[in-house]
Each structure stands twice: as C-alpha cells, then as structure tokens.
C-alpha cells in the first residue's frame, strides 16, 4: 500500500491538517448532497412519456436566500481559520535557529551560522524553531517540505523567510516547487531532522572554516569596506556597530529599519537610500559579490550588534 497521507513532522502540520479535514468534510457533505439529489431526482422524476412536461416552478426566495447565506457563512469560517493558520506560518517566534539558503538552477545551498555549508541536504535539530533566510541566484525557486507543510517561493533579489519547528527526527523530502527550468524536478534534496545532541556532534564534525560571521569579517577586509566603515565613527561611512535592527534616517527624511534587505540594498545599490549626514560616495558592489558572500557580509553586520561594549574598551 503506498502512502495516502503525508507524514506530519512539524508543529504547524497538525494545524494545516485539521483545517484540511474540515474542508474535506464540507466537500464530502456538499458533494454527496448534490450528487445524491441529482441521482434521486433523475430517477424519481424520469420522463415517462415523450410529451411530458415539468411542473411550472419558477423559484423560491427562501431557498435562494438560504443557499446564498449558508455557503457564505461557511466560507467565512474557512477564511478566518485559513488566515489564522497562515499567520502562524508567517510569523516566526523570537528565538530561532537561523540558516541561510541560496537556490540556484538546480541546487539548494545551505549556510549555517557556524560555517557549515551543505548542498541539497539540510541538517536541523528536532524541537527548535528554524528560520530560513532564502534568496535565489537566478530565477524563482520554491522551498517545499511536504512533511512540514511549509512552502515559499525563493526570489532573486529579495530575502524571503520561512520558519518551521520539526517535531520528529527523520529524513524528509525537500522539493523545488516552482518551475525553474530544465532540471526543476532534479532540484530536490532532504531535510535531516536530528536529536539535539546528534545535531551538535554533526555541527562540530563538519570541517567548518569558522563561522559565517567571521567569513563576513574577512570579506569586509578584503573588499575594503573597513576603509570607510570604522568602529570609531571616524570613517567616511556610517558606523555599522549596533546598526542591525535599528531604524536609520535617510537623507530624504524617511526612516527605514535595517534588515537583511536593507543591508543588501546598501551594498548593491548604495545610492537608493542615502543615510542622513553622509555623502553618496559608497561604490556599488553589484557584480562583485555573490549571493553567498552577501549573506556572509549581512551576517557580519548582524554580528556587530553585540560588540559596542567590546569596542568601547
């Protein structure tokens, strides 16, 4: 017997399934109702003589109102339910294990904060909320793990976050669900959910070249970012320490929150949003940094968060 129902391996899966079963019940009810009535009427009122004619019934207001209002109410229940499940999917909890994901034709690249990189295989610990920050190097892909009931398009030029909390150790299918070209159906992989201690061993076992942030720090030197962005507010560019998550005021007077997308834009299109009090002298790094290097830089900027005290010494 082949499986008829997908495994359930994340906290959200049960909520999705519950709504699914509710919808199934409604569909079965109305499906049987309509089919049953059709068969029943077709038999009961079968035309018996070639000249027979049906009764002259033109309609009935009560019925019309009933079958307008009842479905309306039912659908509104479904709407609210569906929206609440979706909200849970859209808002990750505060404490998450962050992993960067880059999709490209036709593979998945994963970048752990501790430095491990993986291709087409993603290791995560059971019981912890995992947040993926995803982007694409070329066309649109889609990160889909049926057992977790999560899915989101992975867009070039943007960071899309996906989160889930695995509940059962095991190996689960990972599919690219947005058509992306010739080997779309080959852009598959596995998510390996491990017990926390196994996960720790796995993490330390990998030949990591240092954390992602430290890779970013090295890039920050190599690309000479540090000539302008210095920790002492003496540089030609703004100080990046403690910047992430804050709001900055732009020359135009608007304010923006510094998130992944903003840092990315600052590096690729510095002129798009000029920070108040600075000259638009930062060169663009479009074409000079890859998506993965960008992620390392972003992680580095994020890591500068905790350092003000350190640099203050």
């Amino acid at each position, binding site marked *: 017997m082949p499986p008829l129902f997908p495994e359930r391996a994340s906290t959200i899966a049960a909520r999705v399934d519950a709504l699914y079963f509710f919808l199934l019940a409604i569909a079965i009810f109305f499906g049987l109702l309509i089919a049953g009535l059709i068969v029943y009427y077709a038999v009961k009122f079968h035309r018996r003589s070639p000249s027979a004619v049906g009764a002259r019934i033109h309609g009935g207001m009560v019925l019309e109102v009933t079958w307008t209002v009842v479905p309306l109410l039912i659908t509104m229940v479904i709407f609210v339910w569906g929206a609440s499940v979706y909200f849970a999917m*859209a*808002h*990750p*909890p*505060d404490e*998450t294990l962050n992993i960067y994901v880059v999709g490209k034709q036709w593979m998945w690249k994963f970048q752990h904060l501790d430095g491990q990189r993986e291709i087409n295989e993603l290791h995560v610990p059971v019981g912890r909320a995992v*947040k993926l920050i995803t982007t694409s190097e070329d066309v649109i892909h889609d990160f889909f793990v049926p057992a977790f009931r999560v899915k989101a398009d992975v867009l070039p030029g943007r960071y899309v*976050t996906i989160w889930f909390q695995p509940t059962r150790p095991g190996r689960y299918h990972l599919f690219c669900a947005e058509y992306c070209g010739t080997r779309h159906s080959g852009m598959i992989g596995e998510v390996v959910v491990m017990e926390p201690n196994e996960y720790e061993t796995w993490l330390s076992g990998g030949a990591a070249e240092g954390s992602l942030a430290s890779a970013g720090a090295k890039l920050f030197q190599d690309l000479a970012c540090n000539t302008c962005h210095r920790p002492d507010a003496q540089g030609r560019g703004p100080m990046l320490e403690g910047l992430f998550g804050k709001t900055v005021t732009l020359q135009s007077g608007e304010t923006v929150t510094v*998130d992944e997308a903003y840092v990315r834009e600052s590096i690729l299109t510095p002129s798009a949003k000029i920070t108040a009090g600075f000259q638009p002298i930062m060169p663009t790094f479009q074409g000079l940094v890859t998506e993965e290097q960008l992620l390392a830089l972003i992680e580095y900027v994020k890591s500068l968060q905790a350092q003000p005290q350190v640099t203050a010494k």
Partner: protein
Amino acid sequence: MPTNHILPTRVYYTIFAILMLCTFATVLIAFFDLGPLNAIAALTIAVFKAVLVVLFFMHVRYSTRLTWAVVAGGVFWLGILLALTLSDYLTRSWQTFG
C-alpha cells in the same frame, strides 16, 4: 435621421482654449517645488483635461446611459488593477519578520 446633438462650434473652441490653458498651467507648476503636491497637481489637471475631451469632443455628455456606463466601467477596471496591485506593494514592508 439622428441629427440630434450637433453642438455649436463655439463649444469646441471654448474647450480647446481651456485645454491649452491647462497645458500651460501644468508645465508651469512643474517647475516649482511643491513637494508631493507636484504629482497631485499634474495628475489632477490631466484628469480634468481628459474629462473635458471625453465629455465634449467625444460627446459623452450627450450620449446614452450605456455609453456612460462603458466609460465608467473602463476606468473602474483600471482602478481595480491599480488598487489591488498596490495593496500588495504598499503593505509589503509592513511585514515584521523578527
């Protein structure tokens, strides 16, 4: 034969004069910094001009209700396209992912 609403040419000349004035005004305004009002003024004048053309040059003012409905329908559908698409663009940054 339906020789009903034949307008006196005076109407056409008047509308023409207003349209030209509006064109002049809109160009003039564009060279002053009015902040966001610049865009609003430019578009208001454009809408006003378009309405004049539709009502008088295109005779909608003297046409059947059906014609009115068709014109309104076209504009309304354009409104749907703009409004619902912008509902996406304007609220994207509202997402507050942690």
